[in-house]
Each structure stands twice: as C-alpha cells, then as structure tokens.
C-alpha cells in the first residue's frame, strides 16, 4: 500500500488535518475521510460539476483535484454556506424557487453560484448561464436554477 501523506487545510473555516494516499481525490477525502457528503460524485471525471467545491475562492471539480494538492488551502463546501443555522440567500432562493428536484446536482450548483456572486454581485443572465455551464442537471431544466441565482443576487444587493 502506498504511504499516507499528511495534509493540513481549512474546510469551511475550520482547520482540518487528514492522512491520505497520494492518489486520492479531494472529493473522496471530503466524503470518506471527513464525512462531508454534500459534494456528490456524478461522474468522477470532471464533467458534471456535482462535486464542485471552492478552493481558495475558485470553484473546482473536487473529483479531479488530488487531496494532497490542498495543503494550506481554504476549502468551502456546500455544508459551509449556511451560517449559524441560517440558509445563505442562494440556498433559500433555490428552495423557494423550486430550483431542485432530486437534488443531487444542487450542492454543485450552489457552490458554483456562490463563487460567481462573490466575484460578480450583479451578474447578467448570460453571466449566470455561462458560469453554470459546467454543472449538469438531469431533472430541473435549469430555468428555475438561473432564476434562483438572479433572485439571490437581488437579495444580496439589498443587504
């Protein structure tokens, strides 16, 4: 068996250390070692976006990031979006706007949308569609997802 490697990082604001094999993906470590199952495995190949997390503020497909690469990095997962039991406006708008059905794609969309709004608080519809293009959903038809992100942007602006 390959030797385990020690990695220290920050996950949702808390410092976390773990031991992993060099070949393990960040997604696998999040789900298996850290029991953070919010990020999902849809393809394990970088194509569906279900595993999206933020790495130093940038959305990445965690299935194609090696866990050892995150040494010293700050990771944000869907579990970190809500604050003290209060949903983030993006989550609230997804929920109220029926932007999710089976919901397996939802964590990836939420994290991607958060990354977009952090960077661009006032995105056009085109910006939203463009930025969400790496996240696939088989159930909703995207329309309500785009509207939910627009609603969340509007709500964040009034704060």
């Amino acid at each position, binding site marked *: *068996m390959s030797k385990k490697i020690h990695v220290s990082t920050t996950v949702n604001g808390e410092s976390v250390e773990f031991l992993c*094999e060099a*070949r*393990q993906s960040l997604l*696998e470590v999040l*789900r*298996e070692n850290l*029991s*953070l*199952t*919010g*990020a*999902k*495995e*849809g*393809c*394990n*190949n970088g*194509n*569906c976006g*279900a595993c999206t997390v933020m790495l130093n503020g940038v959305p990445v497909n965690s299935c194609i990031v090696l866990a050892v690469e995150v040494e010293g990095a700050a990771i944000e*997962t*869907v*579990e970190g*979006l*809500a604050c003290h039991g209060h*949903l983030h406006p993006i*989550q*609230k708008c*997804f*929920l*109220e706007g*029926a932007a*999710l*059905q*089976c*919901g*397996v*794609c*939802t*964590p990836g969309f*939420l994290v991607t949308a958060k990354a977009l709004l952090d960077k661009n608080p006032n995105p056009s519809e085109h910006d*939203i*569609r*463009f930025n*969400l*293009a*790496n*996240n*696939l*959903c*088989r*159930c*909703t*038809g*995207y*329309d*309500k*997802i*785009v509207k939910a992100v627009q609603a969340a942007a509007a709500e964040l602006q009034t704060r």
Partner: protein
Amino acid sequence: MAAWPKEPRLIGTKVPRLDGLAKASGKAKYPSDVRPEGTLFGVVLYSPHANATVKSIDTAAAEKMPGVKGIVVIAGQGKKLRFQGDDIAIVAAETEEQARDAVRAIKVDYEVLPHCVTESQSMDEKAPQVFDGGNVRKARAIVKGKPEEALEKADVVVEGTYSLPVITHVCLEPHGLTAQAEGSSKITAWASTQAVTVVAGELAGSFNISPADVTVLTEVMGGGFGSKFGADIWGRTAAELSKKCGGRPVKVFLDRAQEHLAAGNRPSATGHVKLGASKDGKLVAMIAETYGTGGVRGGSNFPLPYVYDLKNSSRAHAEVSVNAGGARAMRAPGHPQGCAIMEAALDDLAAKLGMDPVEIRVKNLAEVDNVRGGRQGETINRTPMYEAQLKLGAELIGWRDKYKPRGENGKGVVKRGLGVALHQWGGGGAADKQVSCTINPDGSVEIKSATQDIGTGARTILAMITAEVLGLKPTDIKSNIGNSTFPPGQSSGGSTTTPSMSPPCLAAATQARAAFFNKIAPALSTDAETLSLKDGQVWVNGEPTMSWKDACRKLGMASISETGKFADGLSSVGVGGCQFAEVEVDTETGVVRVKKIVAIQDSGLIIDKLTWESQVYGGVIGGLNYGLFEERVMDPTTGVMLNPDMELYKLAGASDIPEIIVRAYETEEMKNRGVIGVGEPPTIATAAAIANAVANAIGVRVPDWPMSPRNVLNALASKEGKA
C-alpha cells in the same frame, strides 16, 4: 363517497418541497452518501468485450491483496459475456482504491467472439448471432382497414425513413445500494431506487427469506427515469458479500462508464413510413415498417400510428438484438419514438400539401377520442381538449405572425423555424396501495407509506393532502416514505405515483380526522358533528375554540392511527398535450439553437402547482436533450461504446436552454377527473416539435435524431444533391 375538497386551501397552490431544506443545505443523505460503521466498498469487474466467453477466471491474487475482504464471481468459467459492461465479479475491500486494485488483479482469460453492436451490423445476413435463433425477430403486421388499397387512392403520399438512436438514462446519482446482512435471515439496504418494495422483494428472493425481513431505505435519491426499479445483480451481490463478510455493510455503486453500458437505455427506433392523405389533408392510410434495438434485452416496440385518426394502417415491427447493454423503461417508454416518427411524417405530408401544420393536426384528430373521466364508467373526449391546447400553444409561440411555410425562411445563413407535435399518455393509479396517518398526543402528525420521492415531489404532495384535511401546514406533517416496511406503496414509474398514493392518503387523513373528533368531542362537551379543523385550530360550530396542539393533548396517552385505502373517483387516467418549438439553424455549421418551447399539459387535478411545473420543465429539457444532443455511439469494429461519460455523451447545460413557457390545461372538467400523473407526458413531444421546426427552417427534413450538426449538414447536403 370520497371526494376532493370543493374549496381547498392548499391543493392547487404552490408549496416548496419538504425535503428541499435538507437538499439545499447539503445535509440530505442520499443512498450513495450513507456509510454505516464498518462499510466495505464494492467495485465491479465488467466485461471489456462486446462478446466473449470466460475461459478461466482466477481471483487468488486478488483475494490476497491488502484490504480485500470478499470476492463474488458472477460470470465464472464457461459463462457468456454478451456486451461490454456485463458483470463478471465484485470485490469488497476496506477502501475503494483497494477494491479497484484487486479488481485489476483478477485474471480473466477471455475467448473473444465476433460481435454486432449496431442494428445494421446485426441485420446483416452473415452477422454473428447475439442469441441462438437469430438477431431479428419480426412480428406480424398489425393491420387495420385496407391500407394498401387506401394508399393507392390517396391524393398525396409521402414516404420517408426516420430514426432515433439509443440513448441512456444518465441519472446523476449512479445505480447502487449499500447492503447489510444479519446472518442469512435479515437484510437492510440503502438503495438508490424508484421502488423500495421491488428491491426488498428481489433481495428477499435471493436470500430466500420473506420481504418482511428486508428493510429497504430510500430517504432521497438522485434520479431514475425508469432505470432504477430493481436491486440488480450488483445489489444482490452486495448483500451476498455482506453475508460473506460477517455482516459488514457492503456498498456497491456503479461508475459512470458502467452506468452507460449496463444500467439501462432507451431503445433505438427506425421507421420506414408511407403516409397518404386526400387533397384536403385528411389522412387516409399509413404503412410503416419499423425496427429498433434494446440491446440484449429487447423491448424496442413503440406506439405507431400515434395520436391521429387512421382508419387504414399497417404496422410491422422487428426487434433487433445487438451486443450492447439491455434496454430499460425510460420516461414514457416508446412514446417519444412513436411521436417523433408520426409527427415527422405528418409534417412532411403537410409541407407537400402546402398546408399549415397546426391545421393538418386539428383535421386529423379522431372525432371521438375517449379517455376515462372522474369515475368508473365516465368518459371524456380528448379531441376538443387537443384543439383548445393547440389554440393556446399557437398563441403563446406567436404562430400566426411568425410561421412561414417550409423552406421560406429567408435567404440568410441562419434560419428560423417553428414546429409542433402532440402526445398522449396514461398516468393512472394502482388500486391496492395504502397510507397510514397517525395523530399523536403532542400534536405531531405522521403519514407513512412504502413509496418514495425520486425528485418528483411525492413526499410534499402527501403532506399537502394530509394538512388540507387536518387544517394544518404541510410542514406540520412528517411525510415518512422510502421504507419498504411501511404500508404498501407505489413504485415511482409510469406517472402512477401521485394517482396511486393521493386517494389512500386522503382516506387515511379523513379517517384519522373522524377518529380524532370522536375522541375529543366529549372533552369539549360537544358532538363530533359540530367540529371542524382550520388554521391549526379546532372549531366548534364554526368558532375557533382550541389550538390543534391543546386538543391533541386531550388524546391522553393514545395516538390515533388509521390506514387509508384507494377509492374510486379521486384519480383518473389518460392525458394529452402539445408542444411548440422555435429554433434557429445555422446552415453553415449545422448548429441548432432552440429559442423557445411552449408546453401545454393536462393532468387532471393538480395538487402542488410548483412541483407540477418543475416536472414539466424537466420533461421538456429531457425532450430537448433527445432532440438535440443525446446519442449512444457504438464502434462497430471494436464493439465498445465510444462516449460512456458525461462529456462526449452530450447533455444540455444552462446555456443551451431556451425560453420555456409551461401552461397547465386545467379546466373545471379536468379538475373533476381527479389526480393524474405528469412525470412522463411532457417529455414526449419536445424532440418531435424541435425536429419539425428544424425542417421548417431549412426546408428539408433531417430524418435522423438528434438534430446534431452532423445530421443537419447531411440533410442539407442531400437536398443540394451533394450527399
């Protein structure tokens, strides 16, 4: 007699799904997230060949690998492997990596045999046989009237060959389950399934125990679309491995490649069609020879003629076997294929006659097209409904202003076009399902049934109905489903869940309310008849008198629990619908962009407008995917699938989505029919409407789906004689 409330507070409103909070916070535990203490990971070894025999298999080295706890061989020495992706063995190990390492260490010696993976390969006379007895099974033609004679006399006839490829389900959560065996007598499984009871039955069968000793749990799950009804060989093997490994839970979920290869697909469909009409556009006859492949499983037949009135028709279908994964039901099985072929031929006929596509459709609806009304014995004629839907849809897409006859869409490179298609579906309920409703002294209310929510909103709908009857909010109700040990519930398929589960839910809540009134009336010094429930209050003679919670306290120690059964008059079957598409086609690149879709759908009484609408949007996008992108590509030479991933197997993303207008056709007459399912119908007509819009735009039929650049450019080339 059972009836839906005349003036509902909740039914027909928009209620967000009850599991939305857990899903939006990342806390919802999908079956693929569940990992009980001590879980082992199972990885499947599957066939790399399209056709082979296992000469020998040696697991000795793999057994000794680090972390390996058990191996079950599914296809041992001498077994046939009939497609790439066919299961050979499953390894259970402490970690996923260790299981993968061990899978690689299993030594299999294959005798590789000649294969056929495409229909044309398989239909060749010299093709190797997929099964003994031939690759093509042709059924006798189903003949109505005198089609040959009628076609002779027709004023105008069109002839064409249309085809749709095999596509796969691509549920975002893969197939699989985690199983935990307690000796040989009990199993618990966390399964990503559309039918907890079917999975329980299958696991019970393989252990030879009673289904009551199996608990299948599906709190939430990530999509099925018809492909997730059973435990499957990998699920049964997970249970076997758990038993072998002393009861440690074993988790087996497929990887994305095997999802495409082995976990189901929609069969292909090709139709050679002759369609004749009189000068005024009235259809007189259709003769169709069709074939399709469901891989090694069959099931490629589909309805044709479709929707329209044909007094003379002949239809012969041939089932073609190929060395590829077996077909499974896929959202409205058969209908998108039948719809696409029928609607394309009808549109080509309209173009030849110079007739308006909407007009020709209205003209060819049957005078009487009866489906079930609200109660047994009552009927309702679908034809006026289709007419009204077409009128509304035409208005919403702007047909009158925008429609130009085929090929008259300007001289520019990018051409716009409009198309339309009609569909139909059943969507009725099963009469043997049950729901229990429990009212507790602390005021909590729980309903239970062994159905499940596959993303449709079933959980929310049951809570809404219960809350309606008890004067509470949907969030006050614990809607407990996804457990096979609960009262018998419906599988989530065929758009049957809501019509099956709503009637027993209404009955359970109504019975529980009656029992509740009887229990608390004495404490309120009144008769049960004077009591009613509204706004979280118990009302006596129309006056709010006591809060729900306080009243429940009067129950003392004993909860009330009632089980409701199905009743006639609350649900029905048989829907129609129409869709319009507006597209833009770049005639240089062949790229099609859908600009707008209008979807009009009836489905009786709608319980939750929000989840109903979501179902229609999702159905339309499914149809847009079949229309523009999806296609399983097989390599005839090597016999393998060339796009078993989510990159080269194309699916629409957020930037491919047009404006979508969804309208419910929900007249009083429709509401009186009761509940009908909506999961499937809205996905049927989209691909047909898009293809008709493309033909309208570019002036030539693209006979092969999807409307990909390659297929569009091929059609344009054939028009210019360059093909």
